């Protein structure tokens, strides 16, 4: 038979992965733009899910020679209904496009200006947070829940099967067999020699006594042999294992404080924008650093530490006393995150409104107990209004702590992502 049927269903899939990666790499810039747009437009909940990305078709055309519109085109079409030879009719709007030739048919059939395709969630985040990093990550600390690497440390009697040291185990088995069987083996050798001598020196036929003697020798040799054979070739206590010990590795530990104003002056819109900022931050941290803790503080006249869920989704209102939050942040640092062990980052979002009398206190807390301890503190002020009290205060601080303090103004949602990128752009490691 000339046909041969093969089942290829189990062959490797994703043959196109390389080509796909090349495409993503080539259009990195456009995809990144598309991702930024998507981040600005998306709802908070599906911020991180993979999605269809669309980039303009003209950017990724593969040019070839083709005919442009114009000149004389003659085309045969199917499906004539009422035309007769000699009919003339007006050219449809759009010039010579009327009777699309072979070459154009596929183009106009699609009727889309964008090339749309899917990327996965991981890829989406990759594009989203590319080139971003927490600045000033420098303090390395040993601690109990640090990462470990394993180091060889000789031989042990116990261990898991995958760590068996075969050479050592067999060597020990060999030694045991010699130790346990030595005496018997020696006796057997003597008996064998005796037997051989007997056979050599005694002429046949054997007398009854001689026969008995020979038989006794043979039986004794057989008994010894079976005893020797019963010695196990390898026994459990022969096993030797490679011993590996855990070696703690220093790794950077960081904590991120998210501070948000939820006071009455914060409109729902501003809150949404702030949420967006923190959410981005949260995604970013979750992704970039496995070992990072996040503390959520929200405040009006009083500050409370809340869970992530509460932070983003519950609503409260009241007046504004920023210092309450800063004070709480300072306390939490003192209690739980000693600065000598932790890299501390702060991010604050507010509409800039603050109780006038609170300004001095804010200043004091920032200068004395927060800014000296943090690696980086970023502040965004949200809203269309002119810069508020807090902004003025922080601008002064900025001059004082320029290496670790950043602030930015955000008018609406669409500005969040660019600002975010600006604040967390990967920088050269600075020695503080």
């Amino acid at each position, binding site marked *: 038979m000339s046909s041969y049927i093969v089942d290829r269903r189990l062959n490797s*899939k994703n043959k196109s992965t390389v080509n796909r990666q090349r495409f993503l790499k080539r259009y990195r810039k456009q995809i990144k733009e598309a991702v930024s747009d998507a981040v600005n437009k998306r709802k908070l909940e599906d911020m991180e899910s993979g999605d269809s990305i669309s980039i303009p078709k003209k950017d990724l055309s593969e040019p070839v020679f083709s005919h442009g519109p114009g000149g004389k085109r003659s085309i045969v079409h199917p499906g004539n209904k009422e*035309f007769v030879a000699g009919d003339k009719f007006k050219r449809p709007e759009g010039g010579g496009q009327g009777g699309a030739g072979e070459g154009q048919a596929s183009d106009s059939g699609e009727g889309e200006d964008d090339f749309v395709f899917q990327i996965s969630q991981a890829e989406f985040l990759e594009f989203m947070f590319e080139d971003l990093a927490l600045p000033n990550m420098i303090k390395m600390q040993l601690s109990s829940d640090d990462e470990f690497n394993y180091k060889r440390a000789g031989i042990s009697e116990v261990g898991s099967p995958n760590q068996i040291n075969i050479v050592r185990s067999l060597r020990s088995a060999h030694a045991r067999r010699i130790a346990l069987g030595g005496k018997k083996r020696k006796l057997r050798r003597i008996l064998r020699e005796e037997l051989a001598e007997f056979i050599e020196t005694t002429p046949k036929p054997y007398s009854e006594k001689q026969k008995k003697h020979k038989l006794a020798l043979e039986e004794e040799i057989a008994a010894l042999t079976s005893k020797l054979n019963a010695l196990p070739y390898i026994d459990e206590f022969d096993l030797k294992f490679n011993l590996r010990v855990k070696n703690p590795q220093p790794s950077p530990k960081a904590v991120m404080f998210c501070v948000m104003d939820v006071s009455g002056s914060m409109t729902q819109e501003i809150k949404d924008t702030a949420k967006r900022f923190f959410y981005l931050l949260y995604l970013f941290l979750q992704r970039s650093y496995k070992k990072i803790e996040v503390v959520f503080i929200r405040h009006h006249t009083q500050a409370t530490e809340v869970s992530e869920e509460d932070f983003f989704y519950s609503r409260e209102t009241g007046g504004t006393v920023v210092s309450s939050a800063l004070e709480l942040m300072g306390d939490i640092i003192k209690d739980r995150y000693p600065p000598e062990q932790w890299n501390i980052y702060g991010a604050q979002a507010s509409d800039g409104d603050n109780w006038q009398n609170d300004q001095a206190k804010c200043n004091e807390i920032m200068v004395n107990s927060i800014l000296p301890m943090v690696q980086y503190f970023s502040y965004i002020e949200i809203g269309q209004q002119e810069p508020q009290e807090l902004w003025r205060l922080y601008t002064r601080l900025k001059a004082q702590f320029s290496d670790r303090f950043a602030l930015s103004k955000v008018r609406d949602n669409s500005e969040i992502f660019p600002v975010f990128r600006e604040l967390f752009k990967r920088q050269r490691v600075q020695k503080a």
Partner: protein
Amino acid sequence: MKHKPPQMPASGVAERPKTKTQRPHRRILGKQAPEENKIQKKTVRRNYISTSNEWTFELLEKYDREISRIAKDKFKLDTYPNQIEVIRSDQMMDAYASVGMPINYNHWSYGKHFLSTEQAYQRGRMGLAYEIVINSSPCIAYLMEENTLTMQALVIAHACYGHNSFFKGNYLFRTWTDAEAIIDYFLFAKAYIAKCEERHGVEEVERLLDSCHALMNYGVDRYKRPAPISVEEEQQRQKDREHYIQQHINDLWRTVPESKDKKSAQKKKRFPEDPQENILYFIEKNAPMLKTWQREVVRIVRKISQYFYPQRQTQVMNEGWATFWHYTILHELYDEGLVSDGFIMEFLASHTSVIAQPAFDSPYYSGINPYALGFAMMQDIRRICENPTEEDHRWFPDFAGGDWLETLHNAMRNYRDESFIQQFLSPKVIRDFHLFYLDDDDHIETINVEAIHNEQGYHLIRKQLAQQYNLSHREPDIQVFDVNVQGDRTLTLHHFMNNRRPLGPDTIEVVKHIRQLWGYDVKLHSVDEQGKVATTYAS
């Protein structure tokens, strides 16, 4: 060669004819009362290969055996051996994305095709091709796991016997491709390009491939018979070529001054002496700045483009031939009682949507469906042979009333789309399709209907339609005209305009690609019928 039905509705398969729903009933009956079932079978005197629509490898083999028997013994289809591969839909997308080849070198554009295929497929905007078949020996055909048994049988008849015999028999394929060696050649190409990427960096190779791809359609000598692609020879000669080419090129670009009278004699001689239409070949052999590995890559793209060249010229014939044979062979199976009513109904449902031809004013219209036109013409040739009318005798005195099988085989072997339509498009097909001929001339205010399907129009329409499938009419005619050998090495190309049609908006981009390959300035003149330069593109 992809076989993709135009806007094939998913329901084409899902919506099954009524006879089918009765079938499970019969099977249950058979299980419960085997004797009764036997009696029933005897009375219909049917000998179905299968009654289930689920395929198994044994069933595929059985169908293949029967189809092969009919194709070879009854209809004299001569084929390469078949290698039928069953794959999953995602593998089909992979195959789709790399121009249907099982192995191909890596390039971002294939990634792009993959992404758009994936998107369209997942959004349900498009059904995947039922099959992909590769012009090679053995002829590789892919069957998709998800297809029903009926569809698998259709694909086997269509691809493994239809396309396969076309690949083996048609003169263009015989001339331009070497089915034995193509898979090896693709392997060689993939390995070579991977090696280049390792040595010279992915980006460098990618830039080069981009430029070559832009000229892919200009890598063929239309009127010269090429040496068939052979992989051993390629590998053997590749090394020699490296030395030889460089020598030759150095000769061409010799900068040592020569005696004066020799110079003036040369001035009048153009290089190349005659315009060259194979731009990639010209660049491979003559570009001054290319490194030897780059020449090899240009050559690879050129050879692959040569491999696809016959397919671009025989779309209507190839698809028409394959469709005609799946239709004829499966009906033969039915007539022999090997397949059930349900089978043939399901088959007809999808066959009908494959050969659907939307009218020009339909939203689904995207040109003439090659399956429809090809199938109609093949069917009509058979009709003209078997039941000729007076009109047929007038139009086709050579074969009207003749042996249909021989006439069809002859058409398949010796024609391409253009000549096939010119020779075989009958008034009946023109009438059935309601073909009409439009003239859209930008010198005239209106669009004119030149001809319709009537006695005065048949010839005009046939001539025009044939012209439409002429590659040199469809694609701009661009040739290497001159190189300024003595001076600044500018390469001049001429676009010989046809019906005053100008070049498209991408032109300047392509010219930039040519410059990239050539290494020096490139000019492209659009020359009108009077020999006057209408437009110049320069880079």
